[in-house]
């Protein structure tokens, strides 16, 4: 029983990295921008967060540095894509390539560094509840922050006026422009916010999760986060669930192995991607569903006249 509670706790923790990055990409994509640079942003942020953590001894500073790094890189991407009308996919890929290269380059001397003793958290009282205490209430604050962020983003998108504008821009930038909204600046704000969240995810990975810095350490989490936003049909709540599900698949795979169950791990690993394709096909086949889910201008350039 205890082992399942621990497994649940580990799943929440594993899902948090994906949830943070997924929420960031959600904001990007809600505004119509696909950010294929997520992997590169996360790597740069993981490096920046770790290095800052080493120098300042503060995890918080590490997170801030990671977030800031993510925001700066995303702003570069945003400027190229939104103002200079560069191709979104090519720019994103360039960012991924550059990020993985530059973080390796700059981070080389930090691979031998280490952070101080890692903090241990539990919520007083609640953590004493049998099973649930272990499963839910002994997590790093970032785990709860991710949940809170999902709630805030959901509220923002569906209950606030600015959220409505953001979604309108993602649906149809031309009419939002015609209504007098500064489409480009709002898109840039969305991209920067999203980048900051991806950065936070990267910093959480290197500062708390593994906790170490080595080049290439994000190992594809950025790409899974991209899958996740689609899998979650661009809804914050579903991103959270999907993140735990994707995180859970990996944990389940290891748990089963430890129990001596033999299944080719490759099939479990490809499951999140197949599930994403399945969801995409399901929502796409019906024009009403796709309209209700996918931001219509996703990946399309917006070119105001004049």
């Amino acid at each position, binding site marked *: 029983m205890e082992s399942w509670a621990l497994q649940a706790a580990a799943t929440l923790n594993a899902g948090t990295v994906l949830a943070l990055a997924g929420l960031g990409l959600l904001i990007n994509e809600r505004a119509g921008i696909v950010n294929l640079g997520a992997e590169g942003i996360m790597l740069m942020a993981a490096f920046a967060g770790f290095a800052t953590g080493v120098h300042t001894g503060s995890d918080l500073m590490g997170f801030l540095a990671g977030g800031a790094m993510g925001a700066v890189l995303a702003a570069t991407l945003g400027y190229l894509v939104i103002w200079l009308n560069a191709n979104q996919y090519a720019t994103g890929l360039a960012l*991924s390539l550059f990020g993985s290269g530059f973080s390796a*380059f700059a981070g080389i001397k930090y691979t031998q560094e280490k952070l101080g003793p890692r903090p241990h958290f539990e919520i007083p009282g609640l953590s004493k509840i049998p099973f649930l205490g272990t499963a839910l209430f002994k997590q790093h604050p970032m785990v709860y922050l991710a949940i809170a962020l999902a709630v805030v983003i959901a509220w923002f998108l569906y209950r606030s006026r600015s959220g409505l504008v953001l979604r309108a821009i993602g649906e149809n930038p031309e009419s939002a422009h015609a209504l007098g909204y500064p489409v*480009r*600046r709002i898109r840039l704000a969305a991209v920067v916010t999203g980048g900051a969240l991806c950065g936070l995810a990267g910093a959480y990975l290197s500062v708390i999760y593994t906790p170490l810095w080595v080049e290439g350490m994000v190992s594809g989490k950025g790409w899974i986060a991209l899958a996740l936003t*689609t899998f979650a049909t661009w809804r914050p709540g579903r991103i959270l669930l999907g993140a735990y599900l994707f995180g859970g698949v990996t944990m389940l795979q290891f748990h089963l192995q430890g129990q001596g169950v033999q299944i080719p791990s*490759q099939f479990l690993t490809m499951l999140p991607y197949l599930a994403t394709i399945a969801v995409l*096909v399901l929502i796409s086949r019906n024009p009403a569903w796709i309209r209700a889910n996918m931001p219509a201008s996703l990946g399309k350039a917006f070119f105001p006249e004049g």
Partner: protein
Amino acid sequence: MFKLEARPQPSRLMSCASPLIALAITVLIGVCLFIWLGKDPVKGLEIFFVEPLKNAQAISELAVKAVPLLLIALGLAVCVRANVWNIGAEGQYLLGAVAASWVAMQAGPGTGRWIVVAILLAGVIGGAIWSGIVAFLKDRFNANEILVSLMLVYVGQQLLDFLVYGPWKDPDGYNFPQTITFLSVTKIPRLMVGYRANIGVIIAIVAVAALWVFLFRTYRGFQLQVGGMAPAAARYAGFSSRSALWIGLLISGGMAGLAGALEVAGPMGQLTPYLSVGYGFAAIIVAFVGRLHPVGIVFSSLLMSLFYIGGELAQSRLGLPKAMTSVFQGLLLFTLLGCDTLILNRLRWIGVGKPKHSEEA
């Protein structure tokens, strides 16, 4: 202050000059990096741009590196021109290699050289099947091709892993995840003894010519580009964006698969999980830097290969970290994308003072 303003017409000059300016800026940043790292910048540039071309052996190696990039990028150029976004060439490359490996493993003592043709065909088919899935899901269910093709990259890598860790594992290979080494009869013929460059080079050159003819000299190619760029207009003229979708994806998948087959039956000689070194993604950059033009892509794939090989040489000769390669490649594309703005826009001096945000009005 300068202000960016739209040109009345896209500038032809800039569309050619932009890659050069981008390259120049990349080189400039590279020089700064060399100086910062305490290395002689001249020597650094020489290693990146001269050393990989210094003799026949080096050029042959450059070709080995450039051919897969070139083939994949050519296919992607067709795709992008048809306005279809296939970013999963990596997966199609892997599947092409898987299919080709299957054929190569069927070879026995009595097999003739014809099997090479079968291997290459299998590669094309394998890649085309993988991109065909994307086309089918888009055509039938309207599923976004960007996301589907990207997801299929990871599915493809896992499928390859499953095969080499499982059913295709070399029984005498001490459980290492790799297939048997293919019989020498399956080997892609080399151009010259002692050099690794193989007939892939010829195939690539033919592909460049064929693609140029297809895109610019055939009605079908014209149709494809119109069908992709302006679906409504195309429909009016009787062209179909559906056929643009299928043709674009099948060609690019087939080309990527062919590259995979050439790699696995050429320099590799066996299938391992390490087949992929990111050619599929790098080729997207190659296609863009090459302006989606067959001839341009020849140059950009060579340039990209120079960066790959140069990075290696810079390490063994100057002790620079290998990450230089991806820093340069990423920078080149960044600057290119930035410079490309100057094709559609121009900079104009608007005097000192605050610029008006006219574009937001």
